[in-house]
């Protein structure tokens, strides 16, 4: 079975631009979460989607948005990019939203560099 896939692997943008990152969850998983990992830090929670509805949002500005499609894939959008948005963006999928008995599987990430 394929794991969580993310595209693109790397990308470089300039300040003020917009970016869209994509994630395909493991087949059968209905929940997708997004995390931002700045170099040298642990991942920070951005969003969780379950059954195409937003179920959680971290402490990120409104420049960050996301959505989940009927096939459970997801997009993360970031507008008006800042230098500080440079990070590894991780997508995680799970069967359902709850974490207690439900492992989140992480993709390899998209490395975003903002110049």
């Amino acid at each position, binding site marked *: 079975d394929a794991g969580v896939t993310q595209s693109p692997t790397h990308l470089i943008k300039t300040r003020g631009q917009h970016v869209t990152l994509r994630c395909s969850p493991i087949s059968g998983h209905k929940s997708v979460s997004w995390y931002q990992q700045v170099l040298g830090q642990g991942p920070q929670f951005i969003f969780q989607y379950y059954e195409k509805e937003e179920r959680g949002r971290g402490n990120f500005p409104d420049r960050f948005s996301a959505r989940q499609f009927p096939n459970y894939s997801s997009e993360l959008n970031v507008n008006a990019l800042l230098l500080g948005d440079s990070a590894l963006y*991780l997508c995680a999928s799970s069967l359902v939203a709850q974490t207690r008995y439900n492992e*989140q599987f*992480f993709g390899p990430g998209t490395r975003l560099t903002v110049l």
Partner: protein
Amino acid sequence: AQSVTQLDSHVSVSEGTPVLLRCNYSSSYSPSLFWYVQHPNKGLQLLLKYTSAATLVKGINGFEAEFKKSETSFHLTKPSAHMSDAAEYFCVVSDNAPNDYKLSFGAGTTVTVRA
């Protein structure tokens, strides 16, 4: 509210010697706790998880961790380090609060293994 503190940013051990990675957590509910490992240029992999069953949890690759509620700790150990254990390790907590399913990561501990 939930948070994690990893007490060591860097741990260096000799191959064949024990490894101890320390983690303290804060949670307002009955938390789930996890340890993830991140090898360079690879995705996060779950090592083990505590979800309110046995307090001593065994994971993959010989790792184990003990949940100690009185000390709010969830330290990770391995009896004998292998060169392949060199990686970044993250302690992670989930509050299991109603309608709050995010994971909160610690800052990470970098493990180096000397031959």
